[in-house]
């Protein structure tokens, strides 16, 4: 499931730091597990409102699916009033921005969690399974034979839960690292406080990811991207494990965006030798009539490889994070299916263990994404002279 490479190099903490780290993580995990329980209470209550229609298993499955998807409002938890049967959601609404022959903006609270039809400048919209559909005034949704809605989906540029989390992560990163930069200026290049934890990571990315894969001469211009992408993915992965229940890096749109940026950087910083390697991989070692036969096969493969590399990046991150969330939530869900003295604690223990692994995966996936991006940049920025020198090292890293 996990695409692991050598991880032992990334363990940088000293023994003392590791101890405190483990302590912090344990507390964090306890909260995570607790929140999982809290969320599932909601599942159970929801089930009691709709008895007979769905089994508990289906209920949990739906909950997990819902969790994996992006959302138009920031929901912490929900509860159902037993007397009236109404569901209360605790959280805050987010702005909805739709481009549909003109700009439509309103708060997501108007949808009432999919219950109400919203009228905006003469158009009607309805929320169905976390997606906005254009409907008529009554909010009718038409289905095809596979029970997929056939209504028109307008261009939805809303500030969703994931966007909010990205903004929060971005601000956190800016605050964290600009204060680190300032502390350098103040203390004469010696890090203070949290900088002592982050500096080794920054140095690790510089020395063992950037310099090792791109080379001493050209690594500098890629450093900002590598550092940003590493901390962005890592922080978002970690937020995914908190009770906020966000799954940003497990969203295909997010990983696609990252992969496209990697692809663009690779393409635009590619050297002559890089392109020559793609369109003329055998070089001058063979006469042209010999090349033609081989190149009919070889060149398309090389060109395909250009796109497969970032595609693998986006699928790897998406699949790993989604799989992690599904496993974790399924194990938590098992507690409510077993409902016994043995099954409950067993599932709890399992989900706790998986949570620990997920913490590792959160770091690991950030590391792998950064590592592979650096590797692709290394290929792109390579000139012929360096090729000979670096060839072996790159093969080792692969």
């Amino acid at each position, binding site marked *: 499931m996990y695409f692991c490479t050598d991880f032992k190099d990334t363990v940088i903490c000293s023994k003392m730091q590791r101890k405190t780290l483990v302590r912090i993580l344990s507390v964090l995990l306890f909260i995570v597990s607790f929140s999982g329980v809290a969320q599932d209470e909601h599942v159970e209550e929801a089930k009691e409102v709709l008895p007979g229609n769905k089994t508990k298993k289906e209920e949990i499955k739906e909950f997990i699916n819902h969790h994996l998807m992006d959302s138009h409002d920031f929901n912490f938890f929900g509860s159902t009033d037993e007397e009236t049967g109404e569901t209360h959601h605790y959280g805050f609404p987010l702005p909805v921005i739709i481009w549909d022959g003109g700009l439509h903006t309103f708060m997501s609270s108007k949808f009432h969690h999919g219950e109400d039809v919203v009228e905006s400048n003469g158009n009607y919209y309805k929320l169905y399974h976390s997606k906005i559909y254009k409907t008529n005034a009554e909010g009718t949704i038409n289905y095809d034979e596979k029970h997929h809605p056939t209504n028109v989906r307008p261009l939805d*540029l809303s500030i969703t839960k*994931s966007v909010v989390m*990205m903004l929060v992560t971005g601000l956190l990163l*800016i605050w964290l690292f600009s204060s680190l930069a300032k502390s350098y200026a103040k203390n004469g*290049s010696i890090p203070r406080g949290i900088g002592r934890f982050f500096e080794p990571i920054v*140095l690790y990315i510089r020395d063992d990811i950037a310099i090792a894969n791109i080379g001493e001469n050209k690594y500098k211009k890629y450093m900002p991207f590598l550092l940003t992408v590493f901390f962005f993915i890592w922080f978002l992965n970690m937020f995914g494990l908190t009770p906020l229940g966000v799954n940003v890096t497990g*969203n295909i749109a*997010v990983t696609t965006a990252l992969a496209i940026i990697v692809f663009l950087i690779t393409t635009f910083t590619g050297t002559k030798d890089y392109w020559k390697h793609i369109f003329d991989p055998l070089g001058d070692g063979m006469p042209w009539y010999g090349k033609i036969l081989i190149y009919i096969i070889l060149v398309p493969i090389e060109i395909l490889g250009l796109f497969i590399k970032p595609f693998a990046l986006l699928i790897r991150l998406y699949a790993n994070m989604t799989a992690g969330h599904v496993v974790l939530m399924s194990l938590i869900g098992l507690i409510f299916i077993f409902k016994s003295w043995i099954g409950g604690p067993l599932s709890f223990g399992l989900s706790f263990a998986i949570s620990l692994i997920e913490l590792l995966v959160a770091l690991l996936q950030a590391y792998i994404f950064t590592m592979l991006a650096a590797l692709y940049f290394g290929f792109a920025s390579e000139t012929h002279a360096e090729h000979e020198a670096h060839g072996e090292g790159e093969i080792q890293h692969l």
Partner: protein
Amino acid sequence: MEKLINDFSFGLFFWQIIIFVLLLLLLRKFAWKPILNAVNDREEGIKNALDSAEKAKLEMQNLQADNEKLLQEARAEREMMMKEAREIKAKMISDAKEEAKTEGDKMVAHAQAAIESEKKSAIAELKQQVASLSLEIAEKVVKHELSDKDKQLKLVDEMLGDAKLN
């Protein structure tokens, strides 16, 4: 695959690109460049400090070697001076001895010569005195002898008798 495409939210993609690129630019300006520069400066500083420490160590070693050399030179010089002094001393002593000896010899020779000359003059004087004394005696004797004629004649006869014609 259909689900993947269905799940793809263009809005999220759009915001992700914008947020990420903005974040990249902001962090590059306000965080990564200062941090990496500071770290580089620090590393450079450490490297320089190590280099200069190494240089200082070498210099120190050179200095020590120089000192050692100087000390050795001084020691050799002292040794040489001592040796020279000893030699001079020995030479002086031997010279003095020699001089004293020649002087002594000279004095002895002088003395001997003086003694000799004294002796000679004494002898000469003695001879003179002896001669004059013997002349006086001889005179007196002759005078006394010649006063007695008979005896003279007797003597002449005796002598003539002794001096038989050989």
